[in-house]
């Protein structure tokens, strides 16, 4: 515990430093969030939503939690772009914005600038229930900077916005990236997030992304996680949707990071809202991949659909927890949720917790969850047609993943993901 104690001390110092000389609404929010975090502490397995994920061992290291931006970054990150993908590239170095492309109808700024200009007050840290999420509280209290992306009214962004998170440090680092996305009325945009870790030191990333999708706006949000085993990712994403809006979230987690914990919340605050959540996780080695999602149907006539699929190898462990919460006023809700898990190893573990919490009567809600291995008959069928066992298995896994990958609407990104799946399966296959 001594290590987390030193972490707490660093946070305390950082908090004191951040807040000195600052006044105003953000200070109040940070102050409150810090108090919340101090009260809650890092979550233990005694908390219901952290029951299967013990995060404490991942925090036991001498982390450097401040002033990482003095570290040098290589000049190009071209190798990180996705082949054939035509996108506006936005690079973040240790959470700080370095280049902001000029895009018609899209405002990109650092959070600090946005705060100084007074544009962020309405949105920043306004949607997140920090009292339930200690990590989100910590990020809110101590994030250093971040970016604000605003898609203006009636704008159809021509190309996807590709955010590349790059991290570099000279020792174990604890970073807290922060992103704020606002899709104004009738706008349409695609956002892709990928990550590149340059150093060989342990990286613990505690990120928060707040998304606001206004009336009749559409946003496709792709998150691709495929990092080295030295990294640990705890993320919190919340989409707040107004009426007639559409938000699609795609979360792909590839073998790599020792710990991945995604919290994804969609708050449906208007009528006629549509939400899709697609997830695919491939876990290998000793990985722990934990996806917690929640769809809050607060208003009538909304539709939500969730599909998460996982493939587990080696001694990996995957957790899925999905909640559909239908409020009393949310009549005529249609909500669906599905989680399928494919275990390829006897030492892999999967814990699935789909949940329905429903307080309205005129609804159609369902969820399904499965865990199992290859269908022997399918395997036999392929083998009987002269396909080798390894190839047949790969085909079956690809087919299993197809339900999710086929939902990706950007061809180059889809090809990239399919390539990653294939690559990760053929490699070190038993």
């Amino acid at each position, binding site marked *: 515990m001594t290590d987390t104690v030193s972490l707490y001390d660093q946070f305390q110092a950082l908090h004191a430093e951040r807040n000195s000389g600052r006044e105003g609404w953000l200070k109040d929010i940070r102050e409150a969030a810090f108090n919340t975090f101090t009260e809650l502490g890092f979550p233990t397995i005694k908390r*219901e939503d952290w029951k299967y994920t013990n995060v404490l061992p991942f925090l036991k290291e001498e982390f450097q939690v401040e002033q990482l931006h003095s570290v040098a970054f290589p000049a190009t990150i071209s190798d990180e772009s996705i082949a054939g993908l035509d996108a506006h590239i936005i690079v973040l170095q240790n959470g700080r914005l370095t280049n902001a492309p000029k895009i018609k109808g899209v405002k990109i700024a650092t959070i600090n600038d946005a705060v100084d200009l007074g544009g962020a007050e309405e949105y920043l840290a306004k949607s997140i229930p920090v009292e339930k999420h200690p990590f989100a509280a910590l990020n809110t209290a101590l994030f250093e900077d971040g970016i604000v992306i605003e898609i203006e009214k009636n704008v159809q962004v021509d190309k996807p916005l590709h955010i590349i998170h790059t991290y570099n440090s000279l020792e174990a680092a604890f970073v807290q990236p922060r992103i704020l996305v606002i899709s104004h009325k009738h706008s349409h945009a695609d956002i892709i997030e990928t990550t590149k870790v340059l150093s060989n030191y342990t990286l613990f990333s505690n990120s928060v992304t707040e998304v606001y999708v206004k009336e009749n706006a559409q946003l496709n949000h792709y998150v691709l996680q495929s990092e080295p085993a030295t990294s640990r990712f705890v993320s919190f994403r919340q989409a707040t949707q107004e009426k007639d809006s559409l938000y699609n979230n795609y979360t792909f987690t590839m073998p790599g990071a020792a710990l991945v914990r995604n919290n994804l919340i969609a708050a449906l605050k208007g009528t006629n809202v549509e939400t899709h959540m697609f997830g695919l996780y491939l876990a290998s080695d000793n990985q722990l991949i934990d996806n917690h999602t929640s769809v809050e149907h607060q208003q009538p006539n909304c539709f939500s659909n969730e599909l998460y699929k996982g493939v587990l190898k080696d001694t990996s462990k995957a957790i899925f927890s999905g909640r559909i919460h239908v409020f*009393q006023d949310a*009549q005529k809700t249609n909500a669906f949720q599905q989680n399928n*898990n494919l*275990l*390829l*190893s*006897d*030492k*892999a*573990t*999967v*814990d*699935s*917790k*789909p*949940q*329905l*919490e*429903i*307080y*309205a*009567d*005129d*609804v*159609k*809600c*369902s*969820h*399904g*969850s*499965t*865990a*199992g*291995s290859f269908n022997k008959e399918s395997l036999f069928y392929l083998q009987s047609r002269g396909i080798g066992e390894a190839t047949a298995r790969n085909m079956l896994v690809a087919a299993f993943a197809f339900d999710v990958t086929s939902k990706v609407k950007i061809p180059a990104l889809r090809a990239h993901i399919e390539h990653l799946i294939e690559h990760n399966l053929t490699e070190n296959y038993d």
Partner: protein
Amino acid sequence: MSDSNQILEEFKDKEYEFGFVTDIEMDIAPKGLNEDTIRFISAKKGEPEWLLEWRLKGYQSFLKQPEPHWQNFDLPAVDFQDISYYAAPKNQKKYESLDEVDPELLATFEKLGIPLNEQKMLAGVAVDAVFDSVSVATTYKQTLKDQGIIFCSISEAVREHPELVKKYLGSVVPHSDNIYASLNTAVFSDGSFVYIPKGVRCPMELSTYFRINAENTGQFERTLIIADEGSYVSYLEGCTAPRRDENQLHAAVVELVALGDAEIKYSTVQNWYPGDKDGKGGIYNFVTKRGICKGAHSKISWTQVETGSSITWKYPSVILQGDYSSGEFYSVAVTRNKQIADTGTKMFHIGKHTKSRIISKGISAGEGQNSYRGLVQVGAKAEFARNFTQCDSLLIGDRCGAHTFPYIESKNSTATLEHEATTSKIGEDQIFYLNQRGIDTEKAVALIVNGYAKEVLNQLPMEFAVEAQKLLSISLEGSVG
């Protein structure tokens, strides 16, 4: 709509049909829980030293445990010191025939609709009627005795078959399992004991009717059923309770042990006082039920129809230890007014080729809250384990709630687990279809609900299915949302 609303109102306001109190002199322990109370109960029942020690162990772990907080409802504060832990009819001699039984007691059963006399001749059901904690009459004992079947109260079993009780009591639900099980261990009053010898198929359905009677007396039943190798038993449990203003705590423990090739079928119809329409009064039904399939090819099946109690909180579970063993759970839970049900099951797959099947049907009306909470756990050695879970919820009215919280944990790649859940209201098209064929709305709803629950009701033995259907119809007739 106005018509159906009226029906709904009537149904909502329906008074509890079995609300009456029988006046029989009671031998009641002073209120409060401490070691002396436990010694008092133990001495009163003339128990051996080991049992008292076990009770005290239970009391110690009761003291150590905080009250749970993970459940999906607000746990009402229960003052454990304000409960009297022992109540027995004073006239405690043993009866050989029904004629000797207190006529008032018999009248109570009569009102409950338990044809004790008739059953003896017609129904073929041996009833161990527990009237506030102490067995009053045990019928059909002789017939069972001839087959070597032991069916008696736990107290009697302690006296006459101490070796069996000592071996199995607390082996499935340990004294420290949870706070209510610990409480039960410390103060359990009485309950049923069943032992089916090797290879014997119990010729009749065994049945116990529990009835809480004395004011302010929580009932702490303890049931232990052991099915030896190759045997079969079907056990029925049914409950009704008189109306009461103060909440009553019921914390029973049921333990089932199935050895190799044995099969136990345990059915419950629970209709305790659910409280009035504001949720005042009513029973807290916090029960720990667990069975273990110890041997290969053994089977345990739980069936429950829950319509009563202000709070029903239980998870009948099966530990599937033996290879090829199987566990089943069939449940219908109805909540209305302010009733709460948080129920489900746990299936622990330990042995190879173990199978489990869970069918849960929740029906919420009025302001009722119905939660399914279930755990399916597959251990690393449970090769080819198989689970199928289906939970459906039916919502009637816009103030009720239905919730599903399954936990699925798999550590084995050869295991196949499936879970699915749906929530919806009764389709207007379904009602319209039946209306169109000349069936009025009230009957249509009854028909749809009965069809909805059929999969579970079919699991009940004949003797119970009738009562269960009657209960469902009382609970849900005409409640069109």
